[in-house]
């Protein structure tokens, strides 16, 4: 699904990512962990074709995403901090806009069905300005699944969600995987990440310091590995 090799990104004279290589097959989830400022967001943006790598190759679903970003965009859904919500539109109007922009079915039936799926149907006609961060994130997930993306890219998706919300999101992501989609999520939350991830990678100083299967890895063990790596970095 995703085949990234040797990704490198510089902003002016600052090196943000160096030699990042990942492979995420369909139906699997990769959790990318790491301290703030380590390049997780930049990596996600490159995977989303929002930024171009300074070097390296990226293939998504077999297509060269660097040379043909537009061919790939229809298959990707991204929910980042922003969640792409227009504050002055209602939840329903937001979905209608993004559905039409994506060339997708924007019928009221379909839009309401999506809102129901993320439990926002009761506030369909409320302006997004009144929503909590978690609700905006759920709206973002509704938007992103209007089409049927093959890849979900999520930046800190569990932030701002209460326990119930986190449980809900976990189930949502597992169902997405079961449907054959691939997920890459960047997060701080080890427990929530391990609940959905098949592989965990730790990004440190712009490089991948660890990349292993999440099976059998408990939160504390991962924590220890993480702390060791950070110590080693010093």
């Amino acid at each position, binding site marked *: 699904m995703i085949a990234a090799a040797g990704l490198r990104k510089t902003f002016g004279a600052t*090196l943000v990512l160096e030699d990042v290589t990942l492979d995420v097959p369909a139906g699997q989830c990769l959790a990318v962990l790491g301290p703030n400022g380590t390049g997780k967001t930049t990596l996600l943006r490159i995977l989303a074709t929002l930024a171009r790598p300074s070097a390296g190759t990226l293939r998504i679903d077999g297509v060269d995403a660097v040379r043909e970003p537009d061919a790939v965009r229809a298959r990707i859904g991204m929910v980042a901090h922003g969640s792409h919500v227009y504050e002055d539109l209602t939840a329903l109007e937001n979905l209608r806009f993004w559905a039409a922009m994506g060339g997708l079915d924007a019928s009221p039936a379909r839009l309401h069905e999506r809102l129901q799926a993320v439990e926002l149907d009761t506030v369909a006609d409320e302006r997004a300005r009144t929503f909590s961060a978690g609700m905006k994130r759920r709206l973002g997930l509704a938007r992103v699944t209007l089409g049927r993306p093959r890849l979900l890219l999520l930046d800190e998706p569990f932030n701002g969600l209460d326990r119930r919300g986190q449980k809900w999101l976990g189930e949502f992501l597992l169902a997405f995987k079961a449907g054959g989609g691939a997920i890459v999520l960047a997060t701080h939350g080890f427990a929530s990440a391990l609940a959905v991830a098949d592989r965990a990678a730790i990004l440190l100083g712009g490089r991948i310091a660890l990349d292993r299967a999440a099976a059998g890895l408990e939160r504390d063990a991962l924590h220890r590995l993480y702390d060791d790596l950070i110590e080693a970095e010093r």
Partner: protein
Amino acid sequence: MSYRPVVRALGWLALLALLAGLGMAFGYAPREAVQGNVQRIMYVHVPAVLTAYLAFGLVLIGSIGYLASARMGWDRLAAAAAELGVLFTGITIASGSIWGRPTWGTWWTWDARLTSTAILFLVYVGYLLLRAMVEEPERRGRFAAVVGIVGAANIPIVHFSVKWWRALHQPSTILGPEPSPIAAPIALALLANWVAFTLLFAYFLARRVEIARLEDAALQGAVRAR
């Protein structure tokens, strides 16, 4: 790259041509009957504006080239050409102003060429300002290219609108070559200076692009992890 000796030769050639041109402007060309010696500034004013237009044409080419290929070389060309274009536009305006003062008594006349040049000056100063405000090189090149294209497309529009506006409001001033037929020595001196300015422009352009290329290479080499 073995361009360096060529560029150096170009520099010497430009200097020689400039000296020759100035010599012709002051020695060979006749003294103008009505305006006197001050009219000789035309030998700077006219070549300067022609060179400025050449520069802006190169900005257009560099801009289109960059958008089409995403190769930095085109952007470096556009940026260097824009800087020189602003320089030569400045020279045009200054020389036009100096010419106008003893001739018409004012530092500024709304002469068609002067007005058009002033508008272009503002457009491309804006171009340079935009470049100064955007740090990421790839983004800077793209945005500058768009402004470069708009600026160049605007040139004919500026030319016609100013020309017709001038016809409406003021009689034409004579801040240009003698009305036809142009005497041979004047035409020759003009041509010589134009060639000299073009050579000088080419030399400056080559050096400026080279400096930009070295800066980019140095930046690449200085890349450090966060």
